[in-house]
Each structure stands twice: as C-alpha cells, then as structure tokens.
C-alpha cells in the first residue's frame, strides 16, 4: 500500500515537472525598459498569448541601467531575452556583432512589408547599414522628443497681459527656440498661486544619454550635422559649424536662465517630477510619456498642452523610440518570430496605439482621424516627419559618452566655450573611429 502511494506521488511529481518544462518551452521573454509603454505592451501581449498559447515573460529594467544591463547581456551572448526592444542606436552593434537575427527572409516569407511602416522609423529602427534594405528589427515604438506646457497658466488673463506687455506678443506655444526661451524667462522665478515657478525642465543628465538628447534637440534645428557627407566620418566643419556652436550656446543659456534650481543631472523622470509638482511651466520629454501626462490626476486633461520641438533654422526633433529584434542567442527564435508576425498586424498595431504605445504602422498613422485620437497625436506625426538620430555605429556607446562629457562640461559645469566643446568632441570621435578602423 505504502509502495503504491509512493509511486503515485512520484508519478504526480514527474508529470508536474514535465508540464512545467513544457510550459517553459512555450514561453518567451521580452526585454525592454521599465516605463509606461512597457505596461501597455504587457496588456497588449495578453492577446498574443490568448491567440497562440505562447506565454510571455517580461524583463524590464529602469532607463538608468537599461543600456548597461542589456548591452552586457547581448555582448555576453546571454539567453535571457528572446526578444529585445533595444534603443535605435544599438542597431549597428546588434547587426555587426551578430546579436540580432536578420529578418529579411522572415519578412518575405510572412508577407511583412516595411512599406507598411513609417519610412523614418524603418530607417532609424530597422536598417543596418543605414538606409539599406537589411532589416534587423521591426519598428515597435515610435518616439521623438517633444514639449509639454501648463496650458492653464498660459491661458490666465493676468499672465497673458504681463507677457504681452513684456514681449509684445501673445503668450502661446513657442514657434522657435528664441520664443521658447522668452517664455521660459517669463515664468522663471514668477509667483503663481503663492508658489515660485520656473521656466523649463530640460535634460541635463550626465550618466547615460540625457544631456546629449537634450542638447541635440537644440542642435538639430540649428542645422547640426554629424558628417559633411553621410558615411564619410568627415566631421570638421559639420559638428563644430558656426550654427552648431550657436545652438549649443543657446542650450546653455536656456539652462542658465530658466531651469529650476538643482536641475543639473536631470533626465526623463526628473523632468516629469518637476512638471507634475508644478515647479515648471514647460518640460522637454519623450512623446512616450505624453499619454500618462494627459491622464494624470493633477496635470492631465486641460491643464497640460503639448507641442512639437520648436524649429530654428530648420524643423527637426531628436529621435527616440525602438525597434523589436529577435536575439540571435535565443533558443526560441521560432516563437520570438511568431511574436513579430503577430505584432506586425494592423489590428494589433491599432490596439497598441490605443493602449498608449506609439505604433509606427502606416495604417494607424495614416488614418484620417489619427490626429484627433489624442491631444498630442498631431504633434507626434509632425515630429516624426523631421526626426534625426545620434550615431548608430557599433561603437555608439563610446561616441555617446564622449558627447555626454563634452556638453555637460560646457552646459552645466561652464568649462570652456561651445566652440572648444565641439572641437574636443571631434577629437574624441576621431580617436574612436580610428580605433574602430573607420578612419
């Protein structure tokens, strides 16, 4: 009798272990940053599990550690992630070092056409070498840097009157950087509802990519270019052109005049905090955060308005966003590809946008009613038509850190001049490209 019981228990345990192993076999892990759109993706992916039976695990890491954590994972050939929503700048390294699976054959087999996605996002998130039809990712999350402002303050008669008296124009959404600075100066140190307010929360973070993303939001509209001709790595006169120097000087002047006290190491979350706590009249941030702001209890609804990154010499915005790639070291590449196939469907893309993700699919963005679907939708479309991205070279991290150091030294620490900062940046980048065999 005892032997029978033991056999039954052992059999049960074996079956349980087997079914557990089978369940693990039909589960995949998606790696991304921990932020609002990731929560929307978790919600969306429930449909994938329901329709295919493939379970989804998620590995989300805060932005501050995102690149460190997952680039190390890729570099070490780790099997943690089957799918990776990596930054746009990773595409060069992902393709060159074999971290990502090339998707051309799969797209052809499954009838997935890159023409169905916004060309700017295909170029930025999917192709390597840039602009060639070699795809290593499916555009997953379109994003660009935009601005949020306190619509309620902008519409107060006494403030509008004071602004008009000071600047001779109506207080409204700035159409260029000069106007943005004037608006920020107007709010800097102003008492509103008994509290001291400040002009604008801008990116100044030193450790990862913050200040580079902020500075380039000003540099691109001034006409900054990385190279004189694409692919030439000839940077002299492009990176440190007179327009670039002017743009960088302007960003520093904006930091000096109009940011809140202690805003010297601020990125996405710090800007959100400064804005939501009522410290600032405007903040720069990624469009990805705008659905959350629009729904926020304190600053949501009519309290906030949104605008696209102002132009100066040209209209341009800093690119954010990511593509979704299949990790080459995964043992479940077939299941991961299954996910891409499902994700590329127009109805899934429509739901993705509805849940708070930024679809790059033409069927969603090209819909005549799209601009009306959210208060920031029209601005998002406008921004995506003029996005520019940082280097996407395999050694992008090295290039990024050099820029972080040079521009932080100038903008926040006030060391040297803008011209010197950009000249030194060219020196750093030249050494990096020489080491990489590109020069």
């Amino acid at each position, binding site marked *: 009798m005892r032997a029978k019981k033991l056999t039954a228990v052992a059999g049960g345990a074996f079956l349980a272990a087997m079914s557990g192993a089978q369940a693990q076999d039909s589960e995949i892990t998606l790696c991304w940053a921990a932020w609002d759109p990731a929560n929307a993706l978790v919600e969306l992916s429930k449909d994938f599990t329901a329709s295919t039976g493939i379970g989804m695990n998620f590995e989300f890491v805060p932005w501050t550690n995102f690149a460190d954590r997952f680039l190390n994972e890729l570099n070490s050939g780790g099997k943690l992630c089957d799918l990776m929503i990596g930054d746009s700048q990773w595409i060069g390294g992902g393709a060159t070092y074999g971290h990502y699976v090339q998707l051309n054959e799969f797209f052809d087999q499954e009838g997935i056409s890159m023409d169905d996605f916004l060309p700017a996002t295909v170029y930025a998130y999917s192709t390597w070498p840039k602009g060639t039809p070699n795809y290593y990712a499916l555009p997953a999350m379109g994003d660009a840097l935009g601005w949020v402002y306190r619509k309620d303050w902008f519409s107060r008669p006494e403030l509008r009157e004071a602004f008009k008296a000071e600047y001779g124009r109506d207080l409204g959404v700035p159409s260029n950087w000069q106007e943005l600075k004037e608006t920020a100066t107007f709010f800097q140190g102003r008492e509103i509802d008994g509290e001291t307010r400040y002009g604008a929360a801008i990116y100044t973070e030193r450790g990862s990519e913050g200040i580079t993303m902020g500075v380039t939001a000003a540099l691109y509209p001034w006409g900054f270019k990385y190279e004189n001709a694409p692919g030439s790595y000839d940077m002299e006169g492009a990176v440190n052109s007179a327009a670039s120097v002017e743009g960088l000087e302007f960003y520093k002047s904006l930091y000096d005049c109009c940011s809140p*006290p*202690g805003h010297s*190491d601020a990125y996405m979350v710090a800007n959100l905090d400064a804005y939501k706590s009522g410290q600032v009249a405007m903040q720069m941030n990624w469009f990805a955060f705008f659905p959350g702001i629009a729904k926020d209890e304190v600053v949501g609804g009519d309290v906030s308005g949104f605008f696209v990154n102002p132009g100066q010499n040209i209209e341009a915005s800093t690119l954010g966003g990511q593509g979704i790639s299949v990790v080459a070291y995964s043992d479940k590449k077939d299941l991961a590809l299954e996910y891409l196939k499902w994700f590329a469907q127009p109805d899934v893309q429509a739901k993705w946008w509805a849940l708070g993700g930024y679809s790059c699919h033409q069927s969603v963005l090209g819909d005549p009613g799209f601009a009306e679907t959210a208060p920031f939708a029209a601005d998002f479309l406008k921004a995506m038509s003029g996005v520019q991205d940082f280097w996407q070279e395999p050694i992008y991290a090295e290039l990024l850190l050099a820029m972080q150091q040079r521009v932080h030294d100038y903008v926040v*620490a006030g060391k040297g001049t803008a011209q010197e900062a950009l000249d030194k940046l060219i020196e750093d980048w030249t050494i990096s490209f020489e080491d990489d065999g590109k020069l």
Partner: protein
Amino acid sequence: MPDEAQRARRALTVSNRIASKLRGLSDTAIAWIFIGPTILLLLAINIFPLLWTIYLSFTNYRANQPGRPVRWIGTRNYERLLGSEDIWGYLQATAHFVIWTMIFQIVIGFGLALLINRNFRGASFWTTIILIPMMLSPAVVGTFWTYIYQPQTGIFSYIVDFFAGTGALDMIGSVALAPWSIIIVDTWMWTPYIMLLCLAGLRSIPDYLYEAAEIDRANALQRFWYITLPRVLPFLMLAVLFRGIENFKMFDLVVELTSGGPGSTTELASINLKREAFEKWRTGYSSAFAIILFVTIFGLGNIYVKVLNKVKS
C-alpha cells in the same frame, strides 16, 4: 559496540599510516603542502588576472568585440593616457577627494575618540549612534544625501541658509561645491571608522603612563603630545592606510551623488575607469589606466607601510 571498536581501530590504522608517511617529509615540504592550495588560488585569481591585464594594456582589445583581431599596439594606450589632460583632471579630482577626506576624518575621528574615551555616562549609547552611518550601504547613503542636498527642499541648504544667509545652495550642481559635497558625505559616513580605530589605540594605553606623567607634573598638552599621540599613531596610520586605499578607488557613493558631474568635476579615476572599461568597452586602454592606478596605489602603499613600520618600532 563491536562495530564501533572496529571503526576506531581502522581510523587509528589510517592515521598511523598518514603519520608514518608525513614523518618522512621535511618541515618545508609539510609547509608547502599546507600553503600550496592557497598559493594556487592566489595565482589563479590575483596574479594571472594582473599579468593578463598588463598584456591587454598593450593591445587594442575590446571585450564587446570578441571576433575582432587583437593587435599589439605597444605603448600607445599609455601614451594616450599620460598625454590626456582629462586623465590628469580625474587624478587631480581623486587626489583632492582623498586628501581632504583623510584630513577631516582624522581630525574629527580622533576628536570623537578622545571624547568617547572619557567614559562619561551614556558613552556606549553615543558610540553606537556615531557608528550608524558606516553600517549603511554607500548606495543608500548617496541616494538620500541627494535629497538632503536638494537646493529647494533639502535640509542642508536650509540649515546653511538659516545660519549664513547664503540662499539656496546647489551643492551637487555647482562646480565649486560639488567636490565638497562628496567629501562631506564620505566624512559623515567613515569618520566613525577612524574613531573606532583611534579608540582601540587610546584604550590600549596603560594608565600608569599617565600616572607617571602626572607625578612628573606634565600638563595636558604634554601628556597628549608625549603619551597619547605616539601610542595612538600606529592605529591612526593604519586607519589612514585603509581609508586612503578605499577612497582612492571610491565609486558607488560618488556615482549615486553626482555621477561624476557637473561636467567632469567629480569624475574620480575609478568612475572614469568603469566608463572606459564597461561603457565604452575600450578594454586595452582601460587596462593601461588600471595598471597606472595599480602602480600608483602599490607604490604609495609600500612607502606608507615602511613609514608605518618605522613609527611602530
């Protein structure tokens, strides 16, 4: 019972066999048998990585590009490092941090130890309270000090403004104040450690020395100068050695507080080394930098230990 007796007999036979074998070995051979595994372990985890790092420092190796051919580039990494203004800046920032933290921690730590050594009522309680900062994690300390330093809402700025009327102080964002912000936090955290070692030194001084000094009518300053200080000095120097090495490679606290900023103002050598090695993945270059730092610490440490031995003797 018979089983147990048999087992005991067998064990005795085995140990006799081993003993007879060992009896044939020299003392040196037996010593090598005991320390051999430790030496092998040291070779594997200390000496080999050191030699490998020296080799890598002469190459263009990048750990994130395994397929890339590794090229011998001679002393190019060292030339770049020693010719770089930035590197000298990081070393200067490190020296500034190490020197000032040592000065503050020795003065305050020794002072606290003298106070606690008076054995007043509640001395044990206050000793425990003083020790709390060094029991905390540096990452936690760094994080909560960023809030304390916050110019608008932080208590540090409020207190300084209250007493000195300075207005809001941006300790972390200001080029002039940021180096002091990390010195203050490190001093707050690690002064108790110096105090503890000094206290051990003070408690080891026999009372009869002070009694003899009193008979000789030595005043308080003379007692301090001729008895207390010389007796505590070896402890103090040991504390400085430990803290000096720790602060030379300071990383976590500063990363949490300032991330090396503003600009590169508080970018200490170890922070830059981490950026070069694990963010830029310039493994060869960062190996050269690590070797330079190692030689510096090793050289300074050796000189210091020699001085320490002289003081002791």
